[in-house]
């Protein structure tokens, strides 16, 4: 985590999606509020650049995006090497919260932080819907 903060937090590295795109994605992300216990969400470019987020700070969003794409990437590699097929979504259930991850088309990853009391089945359904919308928006942009 500290290494990622050094990389993404101490330098202002340019790379910003156009407002026409981020405005539409923000409306999508806010639909995740339908999930009880939703804390925050990010749409990350497949390499980890923040496209849109609902976190308090850009630094936190950059860290979450970097970790999310790395986790999805390593999950894909694991699935591939175990012959399990394609990665669909993942839950990282921890003592203090839940990280829900899914691809949003091939160009982006959607990651959401939830509290431990969230209904994960409902979260999965809503996230799949939001991910589909994100994919469509990116394809049109």
């Amino acid at each position, binding site marked *: 985590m500290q290494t990622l903060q050094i*990389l*993404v937090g101490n*330098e202002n*590295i*340019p*790379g*910003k*999606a*156009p407002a026409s795109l981020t405005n539409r994605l923000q409306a999508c992300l806010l639909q995740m509020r339908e999930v009880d216990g939703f804390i925050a969400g990010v749409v990350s*470019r*497949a*390499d*980890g*650049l923040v496209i849109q987020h609902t976190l308090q700070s850009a630094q936190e969003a950059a860290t979450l995006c*970097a970790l999310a*794409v*790395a986790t999805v*990437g*390593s999950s*894909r*590699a694991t*699935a*591939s090497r175990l012959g399990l*097929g*394609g*990665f669909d979504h993942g839950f990282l259930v921890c003592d203090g919260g839940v990280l829900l991850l899914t691809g949003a088309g*091939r*160009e982006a990853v959607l990651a959401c932080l939830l509290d431990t009391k969230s209904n994960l089945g409902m979260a999965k359904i809503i996230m799949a819907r939001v991910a589909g919308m994100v994919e469509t928006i990116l394809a049109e942009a």
Partner: protein
Amino acid sequence: MEATTIKRASLTNEESQKAFQRISKDLLAHDPERGTNHWGGAAVPAMLLGADRIVDFLRVLESITGFLPARRQSYLVGYKSGKRGAELVAGLDSGKLPEQGPWLRLAAAAPTLSGAGWGRCSIEYDEVSRAVRWEFAQGTALAIGALLEGVRKDPSCPFVAGFAAGWTNQVLESEFEFKEVECVGSGGSRCVFESGEFIRFRRAEVPTDE
């Protein structure tokens, strides 16, 4: 005839040799007590390291996370290096030249990189669109090193893309991203890096589960 808006910096063989003398010899000092080398008076030691070992960092990371996340981390390290490099080189030349505008400070990257053995490049800058393009006609040292171990599916030089972005943004006060659009390491005839506002990755670069 219309006046061109594109400025271009490149080196001859002689100029590259001269840059090597300055960058890799004159500006490199040896500390015999510690057995370390220091470039341009910097406190951090400078090391000779095979280019293929730098590519290994990318290889290891991409084997764990896939290419694009690995690319970004390599890019970020390169960005920091390019930004600091531009600051350092500007500091070395300050007071010795009348006044170095942004273009001359951008163009200074070409002899610096060639002299440091990173590869000989030409840099183009369109004064109207502000687009910037770095081309290594023979490939970067990283790409040449990577190619020795076989043609890669993906570009081998995200570190250099980040370096180009860091240097360019530092001197032009711009906010570009850079993308490697051709790479010797992945079978191209040259390495080319182009500026953009918000890069999108080609379909072929995006991971698949198929």
